[in-house]
């Protein structure tokens, strides 16, 4: 892309540092202003279903077991047994060793299996280990790979190394023949990048290197997804499409727990990137507890009364 692969680290740095700056006060004010949109009645109902369909239902614990993953997959397919019209989620997101279990449990439901890879969440391993981690998940049938960038390299100014690693992981996401390639989501871990200027540069770097999606966070670092950071990444994919004609997806992950939050993100998607992104192909929520609240709100809209946590299945 743009001949950047053949460029030196210095050239890459010059290019990334030539992107327009981000004014912190301004971007936070814009996100806060969008959060005041009032989404009611029919639009609320539409937005709740749209949000459910965009969830990457996630379990990323050391204590994950086949049983835990199977029950998560069951909830992914049938989020609300009291209303079979409830949409399915977009994907189930697990560690690489659980991909086979999840694939089997999800069967032909159409729900994707996403695997975190590349020494998630820290990314502190050699490229060889990261690639082996990825290959393993791809071989087990992962539809999507959520990789982490090397934040240490990024913060030390070694953009070329970050670029090369993304490009290398992208290569091993490919499958031979007609089998579909695994989609690559690149996690920037914006909480460690710290500044908005860094988030903008990392977003462009990931897109240059071939990311299908750019994702805010692992969920293991605070702060995880925030509205201003996601807004900035939505601007990046919008501008990328204007430059190249290609669409890249955005996935905020971590810390989005309520329907109100989810609706605010959808407002942002619509008003910043545009309605083309309002699809699970281009926007995802990385979340575990968000689904529960969306289901509660959905029941409220359907029945006119709030039920309670005991009326939504925990997994």
């Amino acid at each position, binding site marked *: 892309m743009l001949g950047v692969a053949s460029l030196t680290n210095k050239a890459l740095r010059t290019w990334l540092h030539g992107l327009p*700056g981000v*004014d912190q006060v*301004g971007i936070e004010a814009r996100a806060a202003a969008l959060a005041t*949109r009032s989404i009611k009645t029919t*639009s609320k109902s539409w937005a709740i279903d749209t949000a459910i369909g965009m969830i990457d239902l996630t379990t990323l614990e050391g204590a994950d077991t086949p049983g835990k993953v199977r029950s998560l997959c069951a909830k992914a397919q049938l989020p609300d047994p009291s209303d079979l019209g409830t949409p399915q989620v977009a994907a189930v997101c697990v560690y690489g060793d659980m991909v086979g279990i999840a694939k089997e449990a999800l069967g032909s439901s159409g729900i994707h299996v996403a695997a975190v890879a590349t020494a998630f969440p820290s990314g502190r391993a050699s490229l060889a280990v990261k690639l082996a981690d990825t290959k393993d998940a791809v071989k087990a049938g992962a539809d999507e790979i959520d990789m982490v960038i090397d934040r240490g390299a990024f913060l030390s100014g070694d953009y070329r190394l970050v670029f090369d690693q993304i490009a290398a992981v992208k290569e091993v996401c490919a499958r031979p023949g007609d089998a579909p390639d695994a989609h690559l989501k690149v996690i920037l871990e914006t909480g460690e990048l710290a500044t908005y200027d860094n988030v903008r540069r990392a977003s462009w770097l990931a897109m240059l290197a071939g990311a299908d999606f750019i994702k805010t966070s692992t969920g293991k670092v605070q702060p995880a997804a925030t509205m201003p950071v996601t807004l900035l990444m939505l601007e990046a994919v919008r501008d990328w499409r204007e430059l190249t004609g290609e669409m890249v997806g955005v996935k905020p992950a971590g810390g989005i727990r309520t329907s109100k939050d989810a609706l605010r993100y959808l407002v942002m998607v619509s*008003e910043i990137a545009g*309605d083309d992104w309002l*699809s699970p192909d281009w926007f995802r929520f990385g979340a575990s507890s968000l689904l529960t609240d969306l289901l509660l709100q959905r029941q409220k809209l359907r029945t006119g009364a709030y039920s309670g946590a005991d009326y939504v299945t925990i997994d």
Partner: protein
Amino acid sequence: MTPRFEYAPAPESRSVVDIASSYGLFIGGEFVDPADGKSFKTINPATEEKLADVSEANAADVDKAVRAARRAYDRTWSRLSGAERGKYLFRIARIMAERAREFAVLETLDNGKPIKESRDVDVPTAAAHFFYHAGWADKLDYAGLGPNPRSLGVVGQVIPWNFPLLMLAWKIAPALATGNTVVLKPAETTPLTALLFADVCRQADLPPGVVNIVTGAGATGQALIEHPDIDKIAFTGSTGVGKSIARTIAGTRKRLSLELGGKAANIVFDDAPVDQAVEGIVNGIFFNQGHVCCAGSRLLVQESVADDVIHRLQRRLQTLRVGDPLDKNTDVGAINSAAQLARITELVKAGEAEGAQRWSPECTLPERGYWFAPTVFTGVSQSHRIAQEEIFGPVLSVLTFRTPDEAVAKANNTPYGLSAGIWTDKGSRILAIADRLRAGVVWANTFNRFDPTSPFGGYKESGYGREGGRQGLAAYLDTEGTH
């Protein structure tokens, strides 16, 4: 098929406010009928429906109000300690905050501005002005304005229709904090929040006559300005009327502060944080339908990035939601009056006739009421009327510049000097350019931000005197012991 995220209507309830069918004049702590029984109607500019009949004060009514204010000044208000005055102001501020929703809905109904602005800007900022000045009331000796600053007496205040309640707060809060009493005339198209404020004064047990509100049009204002027992006039409005006021009171002992028109330059350099600059441009000119004296109505953009900035601006304007001001998702509301709409329409026609390119996003305007689509003119030069005259509407004129010197020269090349904006990532440039701009307020990487602690006022034909901050107190105090 791409889904569309349609926002369902989300109207704020208008039942939170009771509007009387008719209003008297607020004189000496009560509502009284005008001497000759005349009234005029105030309407909702978004629908043209009548909201209420409002009394029209003549010279006799104004005289009555000034007498009430003088009596209150002599007998009560000037004898109270600063701390006591401060208590009343704190009480008013708190009541305004408690009744914020009522004020917001009423302001939107009478003015046409979107509820999100009256709710999030006008009303909270108005309350903040009372809180801020309440704190000054007992500290005037330490404001750095001399050892023993004294109140002036009775102040006549005339305010515009663009921020009816906020301008009232800008005027009344400092006047009361400094120990003066007030006769205020709100604009004839937007009297209702001032009349609700009168109710707040009663609720706060403010001594009768400290605040008097006389409604009416130009003749009422003229009677107030000409009244011999007024010590000071404070006016916010057009430069034409401001000049006429200055002529009227020339040779009298009355003091005068004027906050008049503007034609602010919003300067975008090639290294600006571009997405935030676009937000600042939008906020600068489409906030309150552009009915803002300090609006960033001239966009000066560096020629090397002009195409990109205009492209981003036009894309952004397509997401602006124009319509029912009471809907919580409305970004741009109604034009305040038929007369203002005619003025905007005339200037926009002149812009087209003079050869500038007119552009508006696609938007459907309501059939009833006064509406004007957000409009951007490109290819504008300094010699165009739309670059020189204050339009006071949602119309942006885009000019380009090549160098910082040229930006400064164009920005200053106007009879006005109220405000300006600078957009750049370079701090040193902000300081250097701000130093050379002849404008009372210079915003850096933001626009249209208001705070009671910050003095506001103009250079040149934008007026004189400052409002807000320590400097704003001086406009209501005799600081030289000569009064």
